[in-house]
């Protein structure tokens, strides 16, 4: 799975993207968030309040109950602020 992070999510996690093998049991964005939170303090800080985050699956806006799989691109970011 390809993961992308933007704005303060990227800053807290300390990287802009990564390839991750996630357990097959993870099939939704919510489950993925729970999984990522346990990867370290930066992740815990970034995902502490998921309601502050938005996500996209394969470059389309997605809700946290959206399904995800090993070949998906999943991005996490704060609500957009315009240009």
């Amino acid at each position, binding site marked *: 799975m390809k993961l992308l992070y933007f704005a*303060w999510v990227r800053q807290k996690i300390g990287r802009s993207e990564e390839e991750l093998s996630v357990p097959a049991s993870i099939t939704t964005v919510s489950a993925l968030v729970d999984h990522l939170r346990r990867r370290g303090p930066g992740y815990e800080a970034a995902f502490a309040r998921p309601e502050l985050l938005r996500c996209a699956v394969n*470059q389309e806006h997605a809700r946290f109950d959206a399904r995800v799989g090993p070949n998906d691109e999943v*991005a996490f*970011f704060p609500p*957009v*602020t*315009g*240009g």
Partner: protein
Amino acid sequence: MSEIRIQREDFDPGAEIAGLQATAEDVGAIASFIGIVRADDKMQAMTLDHYPGFAEREIAAHVSEARARWPVLAVRVVHRVGRLVPGDRIVFVGVASSHRGAAFAAAEFLMDYLKTRAPFWKLEERENSSTWVEARDSDDESVKRWRQ
């Protein structure tokens, strides 16, 4: 024809307008808007972050909506990302049409969208701090008037 570019480098407004005129026949009007970074609240610089691919698609969807609403011949959107300082050009929107009404309306519609809901994130630098700008509900007011 529509052209959407997200780039770090500056743009030449005259060249963008000339390009718009050259892309369509029967152009009778070109409305253009250029946004420039302001030094509000002693802001020294802002850095725009974006999601490549996703941002272009989101903007393209709104350009399509503008084209569905007004008889537009050509649209060009150029948005800069990266670190910008007050006085820097940040955005160009140009709309070519046969008549000025559609050109003005579509350009304003696109700018209201870009300023409020386009997929960018802004980090503002001041003397002693850098802060990410939070989404503001008040921005929605300028967008609401198009939803009728």
